[in-house]
């Protein structure tokens, strides 16, 4: 973590989140369309996890595989991935596929077939608990699982939720990106998933509901989750339009189409947004704008 991030963790998360949006806009603009909305909504969640992740101790599962665009950016900005690779996102033969694979860097597991990630995360948490008997460092590890609200329509998520609560997997934290967006439109227009927090509570989870685009709120929620005596879910209310003010009102948040002029404007806006707070923190991630 950079010095500014240590002094003010929320500011560090906010800055990394802005860089995630900027990098995602650049990656998507090369193709003219893609998963920019997911990077926009989950930027603070991914940034917060990357600020907390201890290598070889903690685990990170990105259940919705198309969110890996945000992971790629976060990994590149935290020295876990060669930033030059971001310019190959989604290309033929590229390591960085638009929907995550087994080769995807920066995660312990991701899955493009939605709803499967929480089961894997529960398996990792159970493995860490079993490792306790052998004194393995992962016994002190935390498993972070990023889920999306649309995934709650998959029954397997609720199987996994029951399993984790029954087995009291208290080192498991779900970051639930409630951006109210899925392929066919707003989630609430397709399936009523509310009350989300009450559902998880009824399944035996500790719940914290926050503005998921507020860095301080997200960090506070992760602290509360870590203190819980059971698995915990951070119900993060977010927007696919966060930081993308230039986006037209009728844009499809799930799979954003960017004409060149709009792409240029979004990138310019995000570059401005990231440049300002990064001033005076030479050598930090905030100044690494020239990866392309």
């Amino acid at each position, binding site marked *: 973590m950079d010095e500014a991030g240590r002094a003010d963790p929320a500011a560090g998360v906010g800055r990394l989140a802005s860089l995630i949006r900027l990098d995602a806009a650049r990656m998507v603009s090369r193709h003219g369309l893609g998963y920019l909305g997911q990077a926009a909504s989950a930027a603070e969640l991914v940034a917060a996890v990357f600020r907390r992740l201890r290598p070889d101790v903690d685990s990170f599962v990105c259940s919705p595989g198309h969110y890996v665009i945000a992971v790629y950016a976060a990994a590149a900005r935290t020295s876990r991935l060669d930033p030059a690779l971001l310019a190959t996102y989604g290309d033929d033969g590229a390591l960085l596929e638009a929907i995550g694979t087994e080769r995807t860097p920066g995660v312990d597991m991701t899955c493009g077939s939605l709803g499967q990630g929480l*089961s894997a995360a*529960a398996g990792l948490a159970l493995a860490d608990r079993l490792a306790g008997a052998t004194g393995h460092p992962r016994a002190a590890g935390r498993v972070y699982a990023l889920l999306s609200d649309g995934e709650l329509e998959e029954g397997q998520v609720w199987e996994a939720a029951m*399993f984790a609560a029954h087995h009291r997997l208290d080192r498991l934290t779900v970051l639930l990106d409630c951006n109210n967006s899925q392929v066919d439109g707003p989630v609430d227009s397709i399936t009523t998933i509310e009350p989300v927090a009450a559902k998880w509570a009824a399944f035996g989870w500790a719940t914290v509901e926050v503005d998921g685009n507020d860095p301080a709120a997200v960090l506070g929620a992760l602290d509360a989750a870590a203190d819980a005596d059971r698995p915990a879910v951070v119900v993060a209310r977010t927007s696919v339009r966060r930081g993308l003010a230039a986006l037209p009102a009728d844009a499809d948040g799930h799979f954003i189409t960017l004409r060149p002029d709009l792409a240029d404007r979004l990138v310019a806006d995000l570059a401005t947004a990231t440049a300002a707070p990064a001033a005076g923190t030479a050598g930090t991630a905030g100044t690494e704008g020239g990866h392309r």
Partner: protein
Amino acid sequence: VKPPPYPTELKPYGRALLELARDRADVLCLSADLTRQCEVDLFRDALPERFVNGGMAEQNLIGVAGGLARRGWLPFVHTFGVFCTRRPYDQVAMAVAYPDLPVRLVGFMPGLSSPGGPSHQATDDVALMRALPNMTVIDVADAVEVRQVVSALAELPGPAYLRLKRGETPVVFDERTHRFDLHSARVLRSGKDLALVTAGMMLPASIAAARLLEQHGVELTLVYAPVVKPLDTRTVLDACAGARAVLVAENHSVIGGLGSAVAETLAEAGLGRPLRRIGVQDTFAEGARTAAYLFDRYGLSTRAVVAAAWALAGCTGPAPQPPAETVPAGSYAPV
């Protein structure tokens, strides 16, 4: 090999897994509410700290197993065959097969061995698992091999599906001489007329049929191929090359299982032989109370194997009929 009837054993798998787990601290036993039925009540009672019951939630359990395997554990997942293949297929594909993890899926009640109706009959499990890259598919039904396959699976780096008969398991092979391995099919007898390739629960009927046919002048080479994938194509091709026609007998749909694997092998090698597939003929099997009834009704009996071989060998006249045998209590004989 000796002819039926065979003595039987109860819970050879459950005992073998427990024995393996006592030797290897990385073995975990996962169950999905069918613990006693899958013989792992033995494991649960002896090593509860390494037993996980995920309840009736197979999709989740497969994902959990994948997570455990990613961290170096060796999970054996137990339920009925239909519930660890057909129901959680996407999970097996994405959480186990694609990452090439050492998860062992152990599915009981293969093919028509269940009185549970089509919902419980794993008639397409081999086809489903065979279609997945990285997956090893094994169909054994002999207690000696059940023991040996468990130790063999401990050493396999990738995923495997093992289908096992539930309840009394026949002892067909000689413990002192039989050696299962993951790479070899076994030629149990040789004959010039036909090649019969079989696996799993069709082994006893195939042995009985081969003996009866021999008494009536039809000689066949009997190949036992419990590892359906990767198939020992060398042994299969050698056996088929020496025969005028080929028969495959399996307790599974004729689509996608051992019969398909043999057909593909022959075709790709350019070895043209007439081929007949004994198995479930692309249908769901209703009317279940006993496995014996189902095996007879759906063409998996010794009589069916004999009749198919008789016709394939070009013999005229009625096919020989297997004698009605009385099976001593506790013994196993094919229908």
